[in-house]
């Protein structure tokens, strides 16, 4: 195991000094050192999307991202996501788009990046955009409706 090195991560607009080995993932550093446990370890293979965080505004799989590669980046986790994410939270609540909640952090962050790029995304664009985030509880329809509701708000 390689030795830990100090590194500064900018997470949710705050700089944190952490100790991470070269092979440590962003997910373990966020969860174990910064106690930001909103990002979840669902598969550790980059498939389920529950660990999604934003790096410079782009959704990434924190379980596949090495912490040291994020040195100069702006990292946003569910705990610090605002703006579109707040509108999505409201919409998820209204639509009943949350059941167990384990996918919800990743869903909200992926959807917020999608809407940042495509503010008036269509249902088909949303279905495609969320297809890398698994949900085993809802059947997705209410999640798509929630994201679509925010997109429709942007259309007006």
């Amino acid at each position: 195991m390689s030795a830990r090195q100090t590194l500064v991560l900018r997470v949710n607009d705050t700089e944190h000094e952490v100790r991470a080995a070269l092979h440590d993932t962003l997910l373990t550093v966020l969860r174990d050192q910064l106690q930001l446990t909103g990002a979840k370890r669902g598969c550790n293979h980059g498939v389920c999307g529950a660990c999604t965080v934003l790096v410079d505004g782009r959704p990434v799989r924190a379980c596949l991202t090495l912490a040291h590669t994020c040195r100069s980046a702006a990292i946003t986790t569910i705990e610090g996501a605002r703006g579109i994410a707040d509108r999505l939270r409201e919409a998820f609540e209204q639509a009943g788009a949350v059941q167990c909640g384990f996918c919800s952090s990743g869903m909200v962050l992926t959807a917020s990046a999608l809407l940042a790029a495509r503010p008036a995304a269509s249902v088909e664009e949303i279905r495609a955009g969320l297809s890398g985030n698994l949900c085993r509880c809802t059947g997705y329809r209410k999640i798509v409706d929630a994201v679509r509701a925010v997109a429709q708000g942007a259309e007006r």
Partner: protein
Amino acid sequence: MSDQSLIGRSLPRVEIREKLTGRAQYIADLYRPGMLHGALVGSPHPHARIVSYDVRAARAAPGVRCVLTGEDFGDHRMGAFIKDEHAIAKGKVRYVGEPVVAIAAETEAQARAAALLVEVRYEELPAILAPEDALAPGAAIIHEELASYFKVFEAVCGGNVCSSTELAEGDLERGWRESDLVVEHEYRTAPQAHVSLEPCGALAEVDAAGRVTLWSANQSVFRVQASVCESLGLPMSRLRCLTPRVGAGFGNKMEAHIQPIVVKLALAAGRPVKLVLSREEDFEIVRARHPFKVRVKTGVKKDGTFVARDVEVLADGGAYADDSPGVLGYSLLMARGPYRIPHTRCRGTLVYTNKLRFGAFRGFGNPQVSFGTETQIDEIAARLGIDPVAIRRKNALGPDDRWFGGQQLGSNGLAECIEVAERESKWKDRAQLAAAPGKRRALGFACTAHISGLLGTGAIVRLLEDGSVVLNTGAVDIGQGSDTILTQICADALKIPLDRVSIASPDTDGSPYNWGTTASRVTYTTGRAVFAAAREVERQIKTHAAELLECAEADLELRPGGVVGIKGVPGKELPFLAISARAHWRKGGPIIGTNSWVFDQPTVDPKRAVAVGLPFPQIGVYSFGALCVDVEIDETTGQIEVRRAWTVADVGRAINRGSVEGQLEGAFAQGLGFALVEEMVWNGPRLANPTLMDYKVPTSREVPYELHSYIVESPDPDGPFGAKGVGEIGINVVAAAIANAVAAATGVRLRQLPMTPERVLRGMLAAGASG
């Protein structure tokens, strides 16, 4: 009244904000001071005797604080129906991956690294990987001591047969004589993984008095308590079980997973220990849905009247019994479907094999048998030239009919379910559905029923000094929404705002017993207990108010907002605060309403039916459902796309409409996976696809956006506000309805799941149906 009622509204989840801000804490998010991390060593063999362990290198590895083998565990066994399972392998291993050694170290990486240093010597035994091989003469015996195991029912077992069950009504031979047409086929379903997005995990801590506190991902703190204590030989009073938020269950977290091992590690290490499974481990060592072989034979009259049914199930139980005897018995109870078939016999055999244990999974055997029975009805309808919906309606159980076995139906909305699905799907206009070029398209239909079950439940409603309320039920909300629904029931019964009631987190020390979040039971059973406990609080409030307002209790009413007053006299009223303060400090004692009950209606009426080896005497009341799907098949690839679906359920009364829809839609998506893509594949003795890379579950692209759910309300006389369960019913006939649509579109009748493009294409090529 009705505009203020909390019942029937789509209120947001009481815990929704914590889940949307990342603050909700699941098992992996819990930390304790001085906490160690656990890791497991799994068996490389499907069936072997353990000869010896060498754990010296692991014990000496950096950070390691504790290494336990089977020799460190006493000879105690657990099991919901048959006590056949140690907390960790002891003497023998019975499937690949079965935990044989457990390690606790300062970090997860150190624990996992030390696991690689463990050496276990085995003496390999012949492996049994298929149910037929388990039954073959001279087969190796997986549980030599089966006869001596403690069983909670009169199990019919022996050799590698874990349990066999038969349920029969009427006279089968007479049924065949009276039938004009008899259809018989065999159907096969695939093993399905639950894939709760949260893997299983546990965290145990021993206090100064030697008492253990255990947090875990679970569906019942009380089943965890019972399983851990019987597998470790601990008195139940020495273990307190708690639950964080749970990232879904679907049956996977009902019985024990690694909780017994984690408790033992914490006791041995003298420090808190947490162990969260990797996704691969979660696939390999917890449990999954049984693969079934189902032979279904149905006899009918020319006019479509069902006369006789014979069903034979062969179920692979895997290495340990777990909930399997219950699943087998329940699948047989469901194999007549929601229909009148006077002469029916259903028999099943559950065998041990050297694979992962199979167990409870949403539907509990119903999806497996329904794939056979509900597709056979379409085959019969086609042979007789009768509309598939019409033949179902003709034979549907009515309100005065009884379920297979003889249980009376308190409510039955099946006819309305069929009507809604038929109308909303425009079933009668289905000939006009247009397929895209190169595609075939058709609708498919199926009906179902499911119980809202069973066993013991309680509720405690406490009126605090300030007039607010704490509700405590012990029911674990695994994401389906019971915390919200039970809060709604409590608040509505006391006519107080939702935010005046807080729901306590399940705790075996302080909560009343609750068998578990399983069998679609919490709304029906726990909801009923909450309602009754709230009524008891109301009664005590009125006793105080009658003394204070100098009137008869019968003249009092609860008014919205937490007030009790004299009927018809607007000014004469008291807030709950005044009542509760009096009770706490001056007279009567703190106001606490309690209720507990156990479901006690017998499943089998011995005057009507014969049952042998049925593991449950009382199972629950019945919900009903109907489903229609619009399916398109690619003629070139065989790919099936479900474009639209209409799922309908009679839930008695919807307490929270949005949550009912959520259950129906989520169950549909899981059924879609079962129907089309999901299959755990064993390569010899080893699970070949224990990752989400290789085991696919439906995404937002595969589940149709046009997924319409409809609620039928045929109130149950005993349910809270008439409510029945809805957790499972939506999954039961998804595969059958899709298969029926595929047959209608292509003429290809698929009798094996999953319905992969390859199987569809082979069927079309064989039938000469491909374009």
